């Protein structure tokens, strides 16, 4: 039985009358590259915020690496890394200063923090602008820095909310290779992305959330087989996604309504 990295039980979150996440039971095994998909407003970011301590659940429980998040938030946070929505950078620091700040916040000693910060900046191709403030970074540079900050303490689970958005192809290739190596070494990666090709290429397991409910979960093969009804199917993730999320015709936009555009 593989070790469970993330386990949620009836996890829910409401905002007034709106239920953003509704009784989610999610299980992610350690070392998996896990893709978390859903259309806009489905509850992906709300889920990732709850799993990383940025948002309190209305009800239900979460266990990360066998620890109850509500009871041991600091112990859990010590072992996870996050690239949140909006990146959460302190924009008046330089890239190096920010990484050193984050390293020290995670309890790394000064020398280790400095060494890792320098190596990460080098890897992310951010080392050649040592005096530039984060406020003056481009969006792609900020994304790379947020990723560097998320891994500086060597987390056992890495949460990535749209990590490749705005990152150039060269850096994206290097990042994918890095993430692949991390999962080989046992790091669990929990990734959300709207680019289904990226999820299909990187992830071994996928969950799909729709209107706050988990509507599918399993390995890519299991999901494909579930749609086509046969093992080893060549069905793409996009087809799987559309067949699950867009099952009711009401979900699909009607092009006839835009006849004036065609």
């Amino acid at each position, binding site marked *: 039985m593989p070790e469970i990295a993330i386990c949620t039980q009836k996890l829910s979150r409401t905002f007034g009358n709106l239920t953003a996440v509704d009784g989610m039971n999610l299980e992610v095994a350690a070392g998996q590259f896990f893709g978390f998909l859903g259309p806009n407003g489905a509850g992906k970011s709300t889920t990732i915020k709850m799993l990383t301590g940025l948002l309190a659940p209305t009800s239900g429980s979460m266990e990360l690496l066998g620890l109850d998040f509500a009871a041991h938030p600091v112990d859990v946070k010590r072992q996870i890394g996050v690239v949140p929505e909006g990146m959460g950078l*302190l924009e008046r620091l330089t890239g190096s200063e920010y990484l050193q700040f984050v390293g020290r916040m995670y309890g790394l000693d000064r020398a280790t923090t400095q060494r890792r910060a320098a190596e990460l900046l080098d890897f992310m191709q951010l080392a050649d602008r040592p005096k530039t403030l984060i406020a003056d970074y481009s969006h792609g540079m900020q994304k790379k820095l947020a990723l560097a900050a998320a891994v500086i303490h060597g987390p056992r689970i890495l949460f990535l909310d749209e990590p490749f958005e705005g990152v150039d192809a060269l850096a994206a290739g290097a990042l994918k290779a890095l993430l692949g190596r991390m999962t080989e070494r046992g790091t669990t990666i929990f990734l959300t992305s709207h680019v289904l090709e990226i999820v299909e290429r990187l992830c071994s397991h996928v969950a799909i959330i729709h209107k706050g409910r988990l509507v599918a979960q399993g390995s890519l093969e299991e999901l494909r087989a579930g749609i086509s009804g046969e093992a080893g199917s060549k069905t793409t993730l996009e087809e799987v996604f559309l067949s699950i999320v867009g099952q009711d015709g009401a979900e699909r936009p009607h092009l006839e309504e835009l006849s004036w555009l065609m």
Partner: protein
Amino acid sequence: MVDVGAPVGILTQIGLVAGLRWRMLRNGLRKKSNRFDLIGLIFVGILSAIFVFGLCFTFFAGAYNFLSTGRFGWLSLLFWGIFVFWQLFPIFAAGFGASFEFRTLLRFPLNLTSFYIISLAYGLADFSALASVCWLVSMMLGAAAAKPAVLPAMLLVVTLLLILNVTLERLIGSWFERLLSRRRTRELFFALFILSMVSLNLIEPIMHRYGAILRPLAHRIVPYFSWFPPALAGKAIASAAQAHFGGVVLSSVGLLLYAAVFSVFLWARFAKQYRGEELSETAAPAPVAPRAAAKVDNAPDHLSALSPQVAAIVRKEFRYLTRNSFSFFSLIVPPMLILILSAQLSEARPRGSQFHVSSEMLFPGIMAYLVLILMAPAYNCFAFEGRGIQTYFMAPVRFREVFLGKNLMLLSVLAVEMILSLAMLAWRLGLPSPPVFVATITAIVFAVVGQLSLANWSSLNFPRKLEFGQMRGQRQSGMAVLIAFGAQFLFGGLSAVILFAGRWTENRWFSAEAFTLLASAALGGYFASLDALSRVAEKKKEVLIEALWR
């Protein structure tokens, strides 16, 4: 076939932009936190109305009086007042292009002429422009009531002044926009602005010392002001009142020339913007430095006595302070004001005179002033974090550490400011007696530490995002200001009562003893509050992140 929209008339476009400004104001009030601000806005609105309509009467009476008593030359003064207000008020209060960047309109199918005209219409909707128009109309009515014959000239002059002023205001605005488009120049500008405001306090001492030299110089310069637009406007009306129509024409042509020159400059600026001028630094690639080898700093850690997390926050706070030129330079203000104040007091009331101001009285007063000024930002201590606030919630720390780091930095700043101020005071007026010195220091510990718990609580409950190096839209949360005011009143009042009780009982050490007791209680309360505040932070994190995200 795709339908393409029909061309839109200029009036429709002006109407659309006016509607946009109104909707932005209305939608901004939808959020609950902003509704508190609505009360403040209504209050400011009432005060502004009193200010505008009060001055309307003044301008009406001024124009009527000067024309009916034959003091025509004085009319220029009224025009000068309006001119200066119209041009300077936007710089002080409204700023340029922070909440709505006018150039964003360029993505729509506007030609340069439409862009130019809409910009002028936009400028006419500013408070300074609306108020100035009201005052010009009041002047016109006053002038017509005194001498009906000047009405046509007044109409001409007011129209020319209106075009001239709105064009110049937009021109200065666009120059400022250009100047302030870069973060560093923006921060430097606001730092200089603060310093120049403080320097106004130096006018009186300078005039006192060098007035005799400066006065003749000023008399030589004043005649040159007669060539400026307000003076020309005054001359035109004075000529009309004396039926010298040549003078009216000459002055009006002068005003027209000014308007034409400003229009040419403004057209050139807008033409550049229209062609896609981009000035912000993020659009330009940053200079690339040769890649340096990774190096480890082996220098001793001066904050090793603190936990790594608290030390990291202190360092980060220090960096933020030094990079926020507005806040950093404002630290110069208190010692500078104390220097000016103590210098003026020691000169005006020298030692030995009946009304000599001693440091016995001034020292507690000055320290209370420092606490009042420097504690105010603590009531919204996350203001400059922006989205970075998430870092504190993602990291394995409790908010106890975050507050300790932030409060330590504030206390360090306070200590440095106090030492500087004490040095200034000792230099100009001498040191206070030991009982007063100890009583004041312990009173500060009591007042500052006592306030910190409240300030931390206020920061969690009423956060408001502030931007570095910006003045426009930089309003603190109304509730945070109220709490700060209440707390300062409470602690300041209590401290004053204890200080006076010491004098009244003639027990020189009574105040020091009482404050030592209170300071100990405040310290105990502060450390006890940190865990409770960590729990509050956990409950309030969504409010905090949401407020600082925007």
